[in-house]
């Protein structure tokens, strides 16, 4: 009688552990699945500071990074430069593409008076394809619990 009660306790313990693991692993699977679907290192990103007009803290952005989706001027991109830990979401305002596909980009936040050259590391005048994490495809606003007014 005592042994079967122990077995029941053990099963309850396993059951509890599995119940805990299930939502955690589902979340990881969804995130990795999204990464594969969009070919992007960060498929969903939350804005933490201003710089683009009317896009406030707490807005969610959906990004993609398909290699056959060319970049154009006017598109909002998520990029990261060396020396800055946080990716930046700004708009491309200048683009020069060579015949071999080599890209030079300049970005600027809509609300900023100057372009982003000051944000790029010293010596780097243009953004390259490898700095780009993804292109912003969609927005889901107002997810923050406190938005600055």
């Amino acid at each position: 009688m005592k042994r079967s009660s122990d077995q029941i306790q053990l099963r309850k313990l396993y059951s509890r552990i599995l119940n805990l693991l299930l939502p955690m692993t589902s979340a990881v699977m969804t995130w990795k699945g999204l990464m594969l679907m969009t070919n992007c290192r960060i498929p969903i990103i939350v804005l933490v500071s201003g710089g683009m007009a009317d896009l406030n803290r707490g807005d969610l952005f959906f990004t993609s990074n398909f290699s056959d989706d060319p970049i154009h001027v006017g598109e909002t991109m998520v990029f990261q430069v060396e020396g800055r830990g946080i990716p930046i979401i700004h708009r491309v305002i200048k683009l020069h593409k060579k015949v071999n596909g080599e890209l030079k980009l300049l970005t600027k936040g809509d609300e900023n008076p100057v372009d982003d050259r000051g944000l790029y590391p010293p010596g780097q005048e243009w953004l390259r394809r490898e700095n780009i994490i993804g292109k912003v495809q969609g927005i889901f606003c107002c997810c923050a619990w406190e938005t600055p007014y």
Partner: protein
Amino acid sequence: MNTVLSRANTIFAFTLSVMAALTFCCFLTTAMNDHLSPIKIDVNKIIVKNVQDFSTTRDKNDLGFITFDLQADLQHLFNWNMKQLFLYLTAEYTTPNNKLNQVVLWDKIIRRGENARLDYRSLHSKYYFFDDGKGLRGNQNVTLTLSWNVIPNAGTLPRISGVGAKTFQFPEEYTPGNARI
């Protein structure tokens, strides 16, 4: 469901799901819009110089100066799911150095509720029209397009080009000195 905490948790989770579904519906109501509109661009003065591009390398690059007229009526594009329109005027051209060049010369943000009827005459570009090289002088095919990026409350951010682009040519000679337009 017999403690305040578990009830609050259930209500919270349900609220989140409902709000997410409603936001998706909000996106669906305007997903089918094409956001097209005719526009009119005219270019007045065009000159090109060759000066040191102080923001990049120490090389001398071609710098274009143009003034342009712009007329568009974009009032009909606004709806309840549109926060703002980001307008930008792009110059697109090809040079021996680069297969594709796109440079934004001017931009404007129109928020919902603001006047969206544009009628500009002899507008100067907001940003310097530097080329990455010396490809502007004598360039026969520079196309100006007015495009807009629709920023919704929820949904995709499409870029639409206005119907009515304008192509112009840069002169074969540099304008020397401090000549301005």
